[in-house]
């Protein structure tokens, strides 16, 4: 390795300040890794020119997989030959992002050997992102990773690496076992994850309760969000403690309850659970006093995504409530999901996310095709326009 040293006066300015510095990270890696060193030079140039220096990626990967690697080449290969290739490997994280020190060090070993020594912990989808390697290193790095028990995550028009909140591992509000379900889904769809065969990407995200700590409703084609359907558990003694310790229950809780279903008489908190919207707010403010009910499960929503191309979407309700209990094999949702995949694969356009597909064909037609009955929980409100297709009212008549 040539140890060319780059002047980085602009980047250097990002070493000061209390927030941890990514420049320090690159410099640390650059001490022993020439790819990281070259990245410093290239990045400084980008900062000078206010312009990126990466080319549109080509197709690279490991044998038998259609994804998991993002090909990347600089447009200045002569100047920075060490990063003429700078592919990333997306490594499927363990559910909930829990690690042992041991496991992390093993990954570092692999990446010091085959890559730039730089990572993202983690990518926005959830993967361990190993930043920067050459095409010829992909296969050996992959081999070492799998030997350590790690596999690649998703990219391209495939199931993407599912992710989840820590759920039952470290949260009292988890209404189902997010990590177990995430592992199950990841394993169930290994083939769809590694071999893109869909019209476009397909993301799953699992949150244990309506706080939605993995933002699944905003960025998952299938969002599975924990909830409950019985009464909120109340410990009145603890409610009074909160009140005595400065929580203004009226202002902070009663007035903020979207179901307008809480009453507080200074001594007792009453919740009309039949109007509760399961928003979590009252529980969030008084975690020692309140807890989700005992009849727990999840709501399944579908279709969120970033704005390209028809505008951003939030996921919307498909299954209002379902119990999520082992054995997961027996859950009814797999058939539903299979139906959704089949329909989308058959009728979806290239680069059309399932959410956009639903927008195009209409939710009513979509649920009909995947075998769900219409339910008022699926909508914010019924139609406002009178442009109703009436054929279903007169079906018997048709010859």
């Amino acid at each position, binding site marked *: 390795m040539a140890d060319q040293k780059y002047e980085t006066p602009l980047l250097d300015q990002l070493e000061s300040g209390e927030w941890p510095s990514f420049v320090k990270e690159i410099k640390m890696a650059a001490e022993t890794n020439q790819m990281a060193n070259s990245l410093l030079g290239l990045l400084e140039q980008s900062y000078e020119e206010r312009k*990126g220096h990466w080319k549109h990626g080509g197709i690279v990967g490991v044998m038998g997989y259609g994804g998991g690697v993002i090909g990347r080449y600089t447009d200045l290969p002569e100047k920075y030959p060490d990063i003429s290739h700078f592919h990333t490997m997306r490594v499927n994280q363990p559910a909930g992002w829990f690690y042992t020190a041991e496991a992390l060090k093993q990954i570092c070993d692999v990446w010091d050997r085959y890559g730039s020594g730089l990572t993202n912990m983690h990518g926005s989808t959830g993967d361990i992102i190993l930043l920067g390697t050459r095409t010829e290193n992909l296969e050996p790095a992959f081999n070492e990773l799998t030997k350590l028990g790690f596999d690649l995550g998703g990219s391209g028009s495939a199931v993407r690496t599912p992710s989840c909140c820590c759920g039952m591992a470290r949260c009292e509000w988890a209404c189902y076992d997010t990590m177990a379900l995430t592992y199950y889904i990841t394993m169930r769809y290994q083939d769809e994850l590694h071999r893109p065969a869909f019209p476009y990407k397909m993301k799953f995200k699992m949150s244990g309760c309506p706080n939605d700590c993995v933002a699944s409703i905003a960025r998952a084609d299938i969002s599975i969000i924990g909830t409950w359907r019985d009464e909120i558990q109340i410990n009145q003694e603890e409610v009074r403690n909160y009140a005595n310790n400065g929580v203004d229950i009226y202002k902070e809780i009663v007035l903020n309850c979207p179901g307008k279903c809480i009453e507080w008489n200074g001594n007792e908190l009453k919740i009309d659970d039949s109007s509760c919207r399961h928003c979590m707010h009252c529980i969030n403010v008084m975690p020692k006093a309140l807890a989700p009910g005992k009849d727990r499960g999840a709501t399944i929503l579908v279709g969120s995504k970033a704005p390209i191309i028809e505008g951003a979407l939030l996921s919307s309700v498909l299954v209002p409530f379902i119990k999520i209990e082992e054995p997961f094999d027996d859950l009814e949702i797999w058939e539903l999901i299979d139906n959704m995949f089949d329909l989308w694969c058959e009728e979806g356009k290239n680069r059309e996310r399932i959410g956009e597909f639903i927008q195009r064909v209409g939710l009513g037609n979509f649920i009909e095709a995947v075998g769900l009955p219409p339910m008022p929980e699926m909508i914010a409100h019924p139609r406002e326009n009178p442009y109703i297709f009436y054929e279903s009212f007169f079906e018997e008549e048709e010859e």
Partner: protein
Amino acid sequence: MSDQVQQRLTDIGPPHYSKFLPPIIKENYGKWKYHEIPRPGVLVHTAESGAKLYSVRAATPRLLSTNKIRMFAQLAEKYSNGYLRFTSRNNIEFLLTDPNNIDPLIEELTALGHVVGGTGNSISNMVHTQGWIHCHSAATDASGIVKAVMDQLIEHYKNMDLPAKIRIALACCLNMCGAVHCSDIAILGVHTRPPQINRELLPKQCEIPSVVASCPTAAIRPSTWDGKPSVEIDEDRCMYCANCYTVCPSLPLNDPDHDGLSIWVGGKVSNARTEPMFSKLAVPYIPNNPPRWPEVVDAVVNIIDVWRKYAHKHERVGEWINRIGWPKFFKLTGIEFRKEHIDDFKHAGLTYKRSVHLTY
């Protein structure tokens, strides 16, 4: 090599998470009772059994060297029996069973440059994307702006002195890999010029019909150039989304003098109190100004300062604005209201003010 291939493992999936869970979690899995936040950056989860788990949360820049990861591993071995995790916003969390380890761990983390905090009503880590580090599509950098913004907001990471949680995110182009579209404050890299057509390469690199189909505003029409198939772009219709560039490398939009940033406010993801909301445009355009993007930093700090001052307790940025109304948001922040703020895309008509619920 063929040997290697024979031994090749595929489709093994990720390691089962149970391998990485500390015993206290295994024992109390699904049996946590409540949590407390005794100080910023420290969560205490108490189980039904009475067991207590102490999580110490520290900032990371997300872009980590293997060196640093090793240091974290070392700290974990020293203080948390080797157990640690990352959060959905790229903070690191050490999972302690011994409360006596909290202070020394925090001290070491701080010394290492990893500030502790981000819990409760604070500003947590900024979700962000690749920027000039790795992506061809970037209209701006990601990590540099995050650093500059968070340096300025550090006190709000370290303290839980805000009306509510605030989630800031950054994406370096309209693809929005950070899924920033539902953030309290989103910083979004924007191109502001139509693609430059590389007429030589285009017929080799791209399928014309896909290119034409990729444009949400139907600005692209097939044409021929020098006898070769090509495309024409109606520049008046182009709003610089770069979807055509994603589909076709011969249509780059990057342009140092015009690329820049926009700022969006008032989104949220949680269902707490109000339903999830998209972020809305606050500042349409700020030019790129590396290495510290002072105009972006100022704009973000200003919004946060005004929100801090006027919001009720528990009011996320969007909830606060919904209460006071957008006219007042623009007045209090001093942000200029422009034609660009008025929606003109598909559902624009629904964003016009269809009531006289106005404040004066």
